[in-house]
């Protein structure tokens, strides 16, 4: 299958380099000397908080939500997994601005999330639970499934039709969907949306967004320019 990837292997290559400890710089140097950088084979990303399993899972999820096509490269090549890693490893992932006082009874959906977990912990638990479920149903982790199977699994989560050992599959699905979409659409300064690919796709110009002199001129005509991001002005 053309669009089936082996994300875990890609990740493990990177991990092997990092795992070489003190030897890593030398190994990396050799790699840098021998490998000619080609757009099709980017450097394996390094992560601050994601485990190998998690990185493989998010890669598979990002590539299912955002497949490569005539509009953009696939999600992982847009840096969405790097984005997720930074978000989960940063203040937000650690529960910043999230009230964590107990007790934690289960509420109604309209009362909002009642988990005592931080986003980082919630995603860790969710990835494990989804993998446990796909192991039961397909005898494989989520990232080892082919594209059609991954799509089916995501739809089952979305519909609440997966058994995540007590956790609500819909809540996990919506969080996963949201963070992938954020990685796709956010300013590239956060690690995703490489090359401003999603902005170019939509026709969103990004920065500086000073339109006082353009709004009348472009009335009724699409204002399309190569998008600019925060980095372009820094």
């Amino acid at each position, binding site marked *: 299958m053309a669009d089936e990837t082996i994300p875990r292997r890609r990740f493990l290559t990177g991990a092997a380099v990092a795992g070489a400890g003190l030897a890593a710089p030398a190994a990396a140097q050799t790699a840098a000397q021998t490998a000619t950088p080609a757009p099709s084979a980017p450097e394996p990303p390094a992560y601050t908080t994601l485990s190998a399993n998690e990185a493989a899972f998010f890669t598979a999820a990002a590539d299912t939500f955002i497949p490569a096509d005539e509009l953009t490269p696939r999600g992982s090549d847009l840096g969405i997994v790097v984005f997720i890693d930074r978000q989960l490893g940063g203040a937000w992932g650690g529960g910043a601005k999230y009230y964590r006082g107990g007790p934690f009874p289960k509420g109604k959906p309209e009362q909002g999330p009642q988990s005592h977990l931080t986003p980082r912990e919630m995603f860790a638990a969710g990835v494990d639970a989804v993998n446990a479920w796909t192991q039961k149903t397909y005898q494989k982790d989520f990232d080892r499934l082919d594209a059609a199977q991954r799509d089916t699994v995501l739809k089952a989560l979305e519909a609440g039709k997966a058994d995540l050992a007590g956790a609500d599959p819909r809540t996990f699905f919506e969080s996963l*969907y949201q963070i992938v979409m954020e990685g796709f659409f956010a300013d590239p300064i956060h690690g995703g949306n490489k090359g401003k690919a999603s902005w170019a796709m939509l026709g969103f110009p990004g920065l500086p967004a000073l339109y006082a002199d353009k709004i009348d001129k472009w009335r009724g005509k699409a204002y399309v320019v190569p998008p600019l991001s925060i980095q372009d002005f820094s």
Partner: protein
Amino acid sequence: MVTKLKEVDAVMVGMGWTGSIMARELTKAGLNVVGLERGGDMKPSENFALPGIRDELRFSARLDMIQDASRETLTFRHRPSEHALPMRRMGSFLPGDGVGGAANHWGGQHWRYLPSDHILKTHLTNRYGAKAVPDDMTIADWSMTYDELEPFYDRFDKLCGVSGKAGNLRGQKIEGGNVFEGARASDYPTPPLKRSLSGDMFAKAAGELGYHPFPQPVSNASRPYTNSEGLTLGACQYCGFCERAGCEANAKAGPLVCVVPKLRADPKFELRTRAWVSRLIYDKPGKKVTGVLYTDTRTGEEYEQPAGLVVLSAYVFGNVGLMLYSGIGEPYDPSTGRGTVGKNYCYQLSRMGINFFFEDKDFNPFMGSPGMAMLIDDFNGDNFDHSGLGFLGGVKMSCGSGTGSPIGYHPVPPGTPRWGSEWKRATKKWYQHAANISIGGSNYANRNNFLDLDPTYKDALGRPLLRLTYNFVENDYKLVEYCIGKAEQVARAMKPTILGNPRVRRGDYDIVPYQSTHNTGGTIMGANPKESVVNRYLQSWDADNLFVMGASTFPQQTAYNPTGPVGALAYWAAEAITKQYLKSPGALVKA
């Protein structure tokens, strides 16, 4: 150990719109004023600068400028019989934190309430009879008429440089402005913002249906404007990033642009940030407050600040919480209807509407501002006959452009998958070609919607969290059904290629998705202490030297955004203090 500081003339609890205006008016009257603000200091030149201010993830998704729920939030349940649980992440509403308050990241839609809104109960019973208002709808008149408040609306307009077009100048109706608005003494300080294609298409269709379209009045100066304080606002750049972030052009009015620079230069004023007020010190027999207690959140040190006058300007939740923590007034009890503090909490029925898609039109959705819209008020308040409709109140209906940032905005027609290549193609195909009519509805008080203290959950200072008991009621659902039908009528008249599904709020109130930060009530104004917390000058019935600012004093909520009257009331109360109270301190209204 609490460090007791030297007494000052007046203390502001919170330095948003109301605290800043009040501090300015009181220092002008010669008082020494201290402004206490729980959040940090903010300066537009540092905090709202390009390019970093254009970061949708940081400001819109991660809520950089919003109250920190890990320290202070509220609990929520639908009805008194249920268990309330904490709102662990800010969602439905997004109060501010830091000097400038929520106006640093507000949208700036700037309204005056309708003359009939000011005398709501009297108006409705006069028009529809004494039985028209259901028993559990605990609405009340405001304590001043529109005409009485008009000079203060006018002052606030001129502080903000509001852009717009008058529809009623000294009683003269003007086509193209809002013909339903109350008589204005003067036109808007700056002309209306530029118009969007979608807004004009809406206005044309609505006009042909016999309605009365007009441009949104908005606190985005349409050209450079020197305000009533001699401070200069820049011209709106139509960047589309207003909401949840600051304005780098200084065109969006807010305390930081319109008032605070004057206070910073005034030796009579002292700003203390990271000063979190935990309670007021209440002398019940003396019917006064003697000062406030606050914690410096950098050091954890606690201070007592004695003051001759205390102004509560801590937004709706801060105001109600501090009244309850300090034991001022009687907490409201819905089972008996007794007590007043926490009563008549109201909200809004927001972010409803209908999307539509035009194959052959390009809208440039990223150009504009939340206030660049055309509206009709034909279904607002009591501007239409409610006989036989089974509900009271109404909606403002608008269509415009200026919230095109892609995390939040990538509309697709109904039936599109949520991901994959087909979804991507649809986002690309429709991004330029979509627009929507949005409606926001009034929310009249109900006996069972109120605020009190939670028995279980605590904030970072160890105080009980405020508890919100709130749900939509029959009146709200009927209002929404009726008005969404009207929105759909206009949308159809615009002849879109594809009409989306109407988005309405049905079922129980959900505290998760953002709706609006237009919370009202809890310390309402009124004619007597049995039914209200403050008198017509926003002076506490229970402490003569305590004044309560903001939308917590509204008896119920209209479909309009609240800040126009919030600012007007601050000037109104300031005048009562400086012209009456300071001359002879005591109750300004006999109970």
